[in-house]
């Protein structure tokens, strides 16, 4: 068996982590540079995935298969399609940025930190490339542990509470998914005579509608809804975000939350089409509540990091809305919005982290008038804020617009309600920006803050580049998705027992 590109991209970080374990812990620079090189190399290797990806094909590409547990029908099956391609790239882009953001912020147990972060990257990429239910579950569960350590060891004051809450919440959801995976395996085996965990094979089977499909959908949906997080399963998120170190928050917002929405897209929709349609109205309702509630709660947060954290609840409500419209525009918009949210919220967390490193406070009331003191920071911050608001020309607009187009075709009231979310986003983000950046310098400590350092520029520039690129020329990204998205919608349409037209 030859080792393919996708396997290398997935396991290069873990291999690097094993190597770095051999480096003595006092060689902190070697550890940091080694880890950064590994993650940058991973990103460099993942670029050919994008370049060589054939946008006309809806099927999985870069597929690799190896027997793993043949008697059970478990295989090492990886591949990407238009849905996962961008998420893999987002992961490989965000990880080196997160690592670089921790260059100075994390000076305690550097060895453990870089090893944990590298293992986490393998877990995250693994989730997006797995085409076997068993393999997917392995990565899904395994990446919990490094994140737990990142929050719990390098986090803030209530880090232990936040870390344990994060793990227990996620665990309860995912263990039920394990039972559902097993039940699906045996039902598929009984119906077709073929016992396999292979996702494409199982997805071709048309599961009869009924109680068992509903229960399996709910078990999968719970695991993903907690991860997204959908209202009312979001309460772990503010704690985890606020307590995590900047690098942890960036990865949490940038990549981890996308695993939930990706799970809905990859598993719930094609495997349980009837249940997905039946629960559509409920998902819409919870999404709208999430969009509006997240925005309202963000508005009143005195803490910058908490504000950004709650804005994630709002933005991911949009993504869920787009997914369940089951329209081409809605789905493409949702996937693009996943990437956009990863970039813009990642950028916001990075900037909040930078200002926290300088002032050791994140309270909005402690700032004001920063424009005069640190103009470069303020400018970059403005771009990130506007991208999150959804200003046309930047990345956030494209995804939200497409989602609203999708939602409008399904239900006009829905689209109207969702649009209020965008207005509220402008309110809480711009109001926050105004209080932090404009006005007079009210605190003497803010007078001699340092502006962006070269290292900080270096980690912001790639993100800003993509923020503008997606905003100005989104076709470069959406074109890669369209074939896969249309195929997915066609699959749901052909498998669902009740006809629906969108």
């Amino acid at each position, binding site marked *: 068996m030859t080792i393919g590109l996708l396997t290398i991209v997935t396991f290069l970080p873990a291999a690097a982590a094993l190597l770095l374990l051999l480096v003595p812990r006092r060689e902190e620079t070697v550890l940091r540079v080694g880890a950064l090189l590994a993650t940058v190399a991973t990103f460099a290797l993942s670029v050919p995935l994008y370049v060589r990806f054939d946008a006309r094909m809806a099927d999985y590409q870069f597929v690799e298969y190896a027997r793993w547990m043949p008697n*059970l029908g478990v295989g090492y099956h990886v591949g990407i399609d238009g849905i996962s391609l961008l998420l893999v790239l987002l992961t490989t882009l965000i990880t080196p940025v997160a690592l670089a953001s921790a260059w100075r912020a994390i000076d305690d147990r550097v060895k453990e930190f870089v090893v944990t972060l590298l293992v986490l990257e393998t877990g995250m990429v693994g989730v997006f490339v797995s085409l076997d239910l068993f393999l997917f579950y392995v990565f899904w*569960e*395994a990446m919990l542990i490094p994140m737990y350590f990142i929050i*719990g060891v390098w986090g803030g004051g209530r880090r232990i509470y936040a870390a344990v809450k994060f793990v*227990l919440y996620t665990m309860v959801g995912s263990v039920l998914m*394990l039972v559902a995976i*097993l*039940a699906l*395996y045996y039902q598929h085996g009984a119906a077709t005579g073929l016992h396999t965990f292979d996702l494409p094979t199982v997805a071709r089977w048309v599961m009869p509608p009924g109680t068992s499909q509903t229960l399996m959908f709910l078990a999968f949906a719970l695991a993903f809804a907690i991860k997204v997080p959908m209202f009312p399963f979001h309460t772990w998120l503010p704690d985890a975000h606020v307590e995590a170190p900047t690098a942890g928050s960036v990865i949490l917002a940038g990549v981890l939350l996308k695993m939930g929405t990706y799970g809905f897209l990859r598993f719930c929709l094609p495997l349980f089409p009837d249940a997905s349609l039946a629960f559509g109205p409920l998902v819409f309702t919870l999404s709208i509540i999430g969009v509006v509630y997240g925005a309202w709660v963000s508005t009143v947060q005195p803490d910058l990091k908490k504000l950004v954290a709650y804005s994630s609840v709002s933005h991911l409500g949009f993504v869920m809305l787009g997914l369940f419209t089951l329209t081409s525009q809605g789905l493409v918009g949702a996937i693009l919005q996943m990437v956009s949210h990863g970039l813009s919220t990642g950028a916001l967390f990075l900037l909040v982290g930078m200002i926290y490193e300088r002032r050791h406070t994140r309270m909005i009331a402690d700032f004001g008038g920063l424009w005069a003191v640190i103009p470069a920071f303020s400018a970059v911050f403005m771009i990130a804020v506007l991208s999150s608001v959804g200003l046309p020309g930047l990345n956030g607009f494209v995804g939200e617009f497409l989602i609203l187009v999708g939602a409008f075709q399904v239900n006009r009231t829905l689209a109207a309600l969702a649009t209020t979310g965008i207005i509220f986003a402008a309110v809480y983000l711009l109001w926050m920006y105004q209080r932090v950046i404009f006005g007079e310098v009210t605190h003497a400590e803010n007078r001699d803050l340092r502006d962006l350092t070269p290292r900080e520029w270096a980690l912001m520039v790639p993100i800003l580049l993509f923020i503008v690129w997606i905003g100005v020329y989104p076709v470069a990204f959406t074109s890669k998705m369209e074939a896969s998205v249309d195929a997915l919608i066609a699959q749901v349409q052909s498998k669902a027992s009740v006809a629906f037209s969108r």
Partner: protein
Amino acid sequence: MIPAPPVNLAALAPTLVLLATAVLVLLLDLFPPRNDKTHLAVVSLAGVIGALLTALTRWGRDQRGFRDMVVLDNYALFIDVVICYAVALVILLSIDYLRREGVQTGEYYALVLFSASGMMLMASANDLVVVFLALELMSLCLYVLAGLFKQRLDAGEASLKYFLLGAFASSFLLYGIALTYGATGSTSFERIVAAASGPDRSVLFLVGLALMLVGFGFKISAAPFHMWAPDVYQGAPTSVTTLIATGSKAAGFAALMRLLLGALRGAQPDWGPLMWGLAVVTMTLGNVVAIAQSNLKRMLAYSSIAHVGYMMVGLVAGGTSGAGAILYYLFAYTFTVAGTFGVLTLCARAGEEAVEVEEYAGLGRRHPLLAGMLTLFLLSLIGIPPLAGFVGKFYLFGAAVQHGYLWLAVIAVLNSAIAAYYYLRVVVFMYMREPEAAGAQWTPSFAGGVALAVAAAGIVILGVMPAPFADLAQSAVATLVR
């Protein structure tokens, strides 16, 4: 004149190797007498490796002896291998542990080996009388071993409690055997099969079955017969606790599975629902009570009760998948638990065993490698992939789903989520809290280090490449469940 039963010593081969080594150890302890007993440990270890090799070479060649009272089939051999690994790890951990605790006696290794031979005999027993005999051989040695630290009060308590409750349970078992004999006219598993498969079973038989389950429930520490476990786990020397948690549990399950899934498979409608209830009670009680423990040995005692509950899920499911899953789980569990307790035996504070969770605060800074290993073992206990504990649970709960026990599987996985809390608490202390006073330090130990490395390698290999081992386990139970 009663003809002597045909003797086929080959059917006892691995057991005999252990017995011979035990006798040799006793003799070597006397001639010449030495204060340091490391040489006895080396001899014992050699004996265990000999037994392991004997077992491996017998694979696929069934042997029966003593009028079929003892069989050495693949099933027994699989359990023998598990027991050999368990005993070998225990011996490796014991050397420096006993030296540090200042309790060096030659009988220790002999008793461990005698007890291990009893465990192996339980796996081979094909007759209720032999089951009882083997159980007593194993248990009596363990009672003595539990009280090895005779100056310590809790050791005395552990030993006495274990002995009294154990004797009580043995008498339940014996009474059950007697009633079963009365109901079926035989103690041989082969004849019980026919009697148990009939359409209606007598009250006598059912009472006998219930009493036997009480006896076994005690030995595997299933709720509500688990009361002894926390006290014994806490009071016994940690190396002995390891043996009780691994080897004796494997042996108890070995005999119970041969009885329930083999001899009494026809009576599944009678014991199945009972086992369902016991499994739920056992795992839930174990996990919930473990949350409240601050003493690690007690916590692990309750955790082991919970794991017994998971394995009982496999009993309820039955079939090759259920039985094979239990064998795999026992194998995986042995490495995991031996590793966990192994770290505890190697950690001490001011010469005293470190067993309180607070003493492990900051271990990740003081001894990164040791803390890393303990984390690995705990993650395997939680069932985080890709470690052995996860694959074991996957097989067990998969068997339950396969045989239609969906809700049992749901209860079991929710229990695993509860369990994550108290296992991670130890990790919290090791990595996320700073020590308030002097914390646990590790006693440098080459043998102990080897044991931990073997255990860690075992759970990684079993987790990443489970297929060959799971296939072996499945084929080993093929003759058992038919």
